[in-house]
């Protein structure tokens, strides 16, 4: 699939003018809203930057709507837990949009411990002509007021403001890894290593615990929850993935505490590939329902798997993301890369899936044609409006001209977070502190 790249570096450190990456600028999550009009990114510094697609102009029909900064706000601040003497990172782990119901936009953002509901709204008018205060805001002396007037709304420069409407806190002992909004638009779940909590968007002082896998004796702990998501259409169904490579589908109608799954997806391990690191690479880092609700996609360290919800004993499809790393697991363990949590994403029609890799590579797999492509997100290798060139990793033997050998891969450049526009072929890819937005060719 060919892509036109509208590459640009979107510098999240808007207050500074530096070229080097500061750690706070590292993008930690990206998410399109349900219409695709807005794109939100969260970073390690606790900030959220929202981009808006500009309206397509009639004068330049070739120029598809580009994404510009719409709003920036500090969502989370670093905190300190005095009881445990632990610092709570402000890094935004996940952002999830609520579907738009009025003029304002709502999103949920979370760090390790606290989920917040943000309202992003526009203000382009302000009232003028108050009686008791003048235009500068100073209180007028009542004795000077001789007549009354009605304040009128006057246009002003567009201002986009973000306000925290709800703060959902103190419900997680462990680190929150995911949040998911229910299709009922009234509830959402937040998930940490051992528990899943169900919240009502209106109520912040309590939540229901619906999954708890904490063993009575912590020494018996063998698996943790790595991600959870609501079914896109069935408001009573959600799935959660584990560090052991299994996925459980739960129905909230069965019991208040969904400790018993109604479906359990796991592929038996292949004993021939067993190694010291088998457990680590089988840990699922992301789980996503397809838009049509019939499939589940999971990402573990080396593969992406598509599961049919009707078939629990093995995945429908398995795609190798970077199998050439299988022989390098020991070095990847030493440099900590083996712990990287890659995300995966469906396109709008569920025909193509995408996930990231190293060296700023990301991979797309077409489920119908079974073709796959490796693309690179880098300024050096792609000019604006140029078509991205497919990349190839040479696994051994003779290296062809454009190929890159496994040993030359830069493991510090990893694409962990990607998102796909809900309807169009527009993708956003986060490469450390840079955001790349790629659009499909016009015509």
């Amino acid at each position, binding site marked *: 699939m060919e892509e036109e790249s509208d590459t640009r570096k979107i510098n999240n450190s808007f207050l500074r003018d530096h070229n080097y990456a500061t750690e706070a600028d590292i993008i930690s999550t990206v998410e399109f809203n349900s219409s695709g009009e807005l794109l939100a990114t969260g970073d390690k510094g606790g900030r959220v930057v929202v981009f808006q697609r500009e309206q397509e102009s009639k004068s330049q029909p070739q120029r598809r709507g580009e994404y510009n900064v719409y709003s920036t706000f500090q969502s989370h601040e670093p905190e300190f837990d005095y009881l445990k003497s632990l610092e709570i990172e402000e890094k935004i782990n996940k952002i999830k949009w609520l579907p738009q119901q009025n003029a304002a936009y709502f999103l949920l953002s979370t760090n390790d411990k606290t989920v917040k509901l943000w309202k992003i709204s526009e203000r382009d008018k302000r009232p003028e002509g108050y009686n008791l205060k003048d235009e500068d805001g100073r209180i007028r002396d009542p004795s000077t007021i001789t007549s009354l007037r009605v304040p009128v709304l006057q246009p002003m420069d567009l201002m986009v403001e973000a306000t925290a409407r709800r703060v959902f806190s103190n419900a997680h002992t462990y680190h929150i890894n995911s949040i998911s909004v229910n299709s009922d638009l009234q509830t959402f779940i937040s998930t940490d290593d051992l528990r899943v909590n169900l919240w009502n968007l209106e109520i912040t002082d309590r939540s229901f615990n619906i999954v708890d896998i904490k063993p009575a004796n912590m*020494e018996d702990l063998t698996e943790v929850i*790595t991600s959870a998501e609501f079914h896109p259409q069935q408001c009573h169904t959600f799935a959660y993935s584990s560090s052991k490579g299994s996925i459980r589908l739960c129905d909230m109608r069965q019991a208040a505490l969904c400790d018993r799954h109604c479906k359990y997806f796991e592929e038996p391990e292949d004993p021939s590939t067993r190694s010291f690191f088998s457990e680590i690479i089988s840990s699922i880092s992301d789980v996503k329902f397809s838009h049509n609700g019939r499939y589940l996609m999971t990402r573990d360290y080396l593969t992406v798997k598509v599961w049919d919800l009707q078939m629990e004993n093995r995945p429908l499809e398995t795609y190798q993301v970077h199998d050439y790393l299988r022989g390098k697991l020991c070095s990847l363990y030493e440099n900590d890369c083996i712990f990287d949590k890659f995300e995966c994403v469906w396109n709008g029609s569920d025909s193509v899936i995408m996930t990231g890799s190293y060296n700023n590579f990301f991979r797309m797999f077409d489920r119908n044609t079974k073709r796959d492509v490796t693309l690179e997100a880098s300024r050096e290798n792609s000019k604006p409006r140029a078509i991205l060139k497919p990349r190839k990793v040479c696994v051994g033997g003779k290296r062809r001209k454009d190929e890159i050998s496994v040993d030359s891969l830069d493991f510090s450049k990893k694409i962990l977070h990607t998102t796909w526009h809900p309807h169009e072929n527009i993708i956003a890819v986060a490469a450390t502190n840079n955001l790349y937005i790629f659009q499909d060719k016009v015509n």
Partner: protein
Amino acid sequence: MSATTAMEVNVEARRILAVSISKLYASRTQRGGLRLHRSLLLSLVMRSARDIYHSSRESEVLTGAPSEEPMDTSSSQGEQTPQPEPQPEPQPILNSAEVTPEEPENTEDECEGEITEDKENLSPSRQSRKRRGKASAAPDFLPSKRARLEHGEERYAAALGSCRVGAGESLTTLSLNRVIPAF
């Protein structure tokens, strides 16, 4: 041939254990607190490596190579969910050449630095207020004496404490279960 392979596995297992210990130690100071998932994965790798190391050591014991008894306990396998033993290499044959286990230099250096801390933290049985759970069933060849440490320091120092032991067995006596912090 297989003896050499067994030794390679042995060395590899020890190296992985050493790397894992240093990662565990480093994770204490990272921002945001200990990550349960990461600690769990580290402990799983350490257990795999330790099992490999044990099985190759057992065969050495059978051939008469000297083995030193560790001084503090290791974790149990008892209550863990049974997992398939990783066997990436064939088992060393009984008549393997005598292999003197060499303590990897880096591990020893690491451990030296932590000996002082560990001595300070050792204290005779002190009831922990945290949920500890029943004592792990230690394998036969390990003594049951348990190093009790300061509350809160137990899990990490337990892993480190085993480094104090003499050459050869030290890395296998990690209390792997205790590396999972109980909040």
